[in-house]
């Protein structure tokens, strides 16, 4: 790893409760890689097996669909990570991650992470807890969306669905009016 560690990762919230020296030591064990805007960090179907911490730039996660152009699933900003599921539970990458701007990442592979975990590195432990809590959050969000769709398909009232959809997705930036119009045209038309 290069001489200067990115403060956005070392001093960020990912390794909560861990001493600074241990946080530094953890990131020292990563490998720095750079990507120009538009390059893929990994591609759907690749074997997984590493977690990528975004040190600089921004990463856009997209998934290809059968008929349409790729769907953007998420934007991951500097200070955050991507690829944690395949770090812990081997499976091919389920989506493609593309640098949305010139991007630098710190990469830690599975063997390095597990060795640190089994050597009782508190930073690896803390990261495991951060990942576990994130996964729980995502399960709850996904379950809530599934319930919402079930309710919509079974004819629950459009007003309550709209409020819940906004609460779930957090996408209020498009303005309440356009939301109301879009949602009512969908759910309303269906009822």
């Amino acid at each position: 790893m290069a001489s200067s560690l990115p403060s956005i990762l070392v001093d960020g919230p990912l390794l909560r409760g861990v001493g600074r020296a241990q946080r530094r030591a953890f990131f020292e064990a990563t490998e720095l890689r750079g990507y120009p805007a538009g390059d893929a960090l990994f591609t759907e179907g690749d074997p997984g097996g590493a977690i990528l911490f975004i040190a600089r730039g921004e990463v856009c996660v997209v998934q290809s669909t059968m008929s349409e152009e790729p769907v953007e699933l998420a934007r991951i900003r500097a200070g955050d990570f991507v690829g944690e599921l395949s770090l812990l539970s081997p499976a091919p990458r389920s989506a493609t991650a593309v640098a949305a701007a010139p991007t630098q990442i710190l990469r830690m592979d599975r063997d390095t992470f597990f060795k640190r975990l089994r050597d009782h590195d508190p930073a690896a432990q803390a990261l495991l807890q951060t990942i576990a809590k994130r996964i729980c959050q995502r399960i709850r969000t996904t379950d809530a969306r599934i319930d919402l769709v079930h309710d919509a398909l079974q004819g629950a009232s459009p007003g309550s669905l709209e409020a819940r959809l906004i609460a779930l997705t957090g996408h209020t930036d498009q303005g309440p009016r356009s939301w109301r119009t879009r949602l009512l045209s969908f759910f309303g038309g269906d009822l």
Partner: protein
Amino acid sequence: MIDLMDLPLFRSMPPEASAAITSTFQSRQLTEEQEVFRQGDPGDSLVVVLDGVFELVRRGSTGEVHLADVMPGDMLGHLSLVDGGRRSATMRALEPGAVAVLSRDAFDALWEQQDEVAVELQLQIIRDLIAELRSANRKLVDLIQGPLADAPDAIRRLLGSGAVVRGS
């Protein structure tokens, strides 16, 4: 009636280690129709079915939905155990049965304890959570591509955003 020590999770551990962990579970007998936990309750334990058949149901605004049957050897409640959140479903006995319960306090003590056994248990629980997340994602994607196929793109995108890789 199964023995906790026969679960794949514990079989893979050294015998002293699995004995130490399984001794922190408490067993509980249930009669038919009795609830092990109820949707909305604070989640405070991991539950392993030892005997009998249970069901998992979730109530939505349009009634109760059967999610799954739960059989001996199945483990439930990972989510609440890790994040301390509320139960997302109700678990109910379909016949007289027995479960073993690991309390959140005992689990938290394991998180604190940095030995190999604790790490293995944590990893197993996280792997189960990842499997649950992947299955929920598949369900959501199936809904978006199936019954919602004709919905406006904006709605489908928002419902699906982060579904595979990252929740917002």
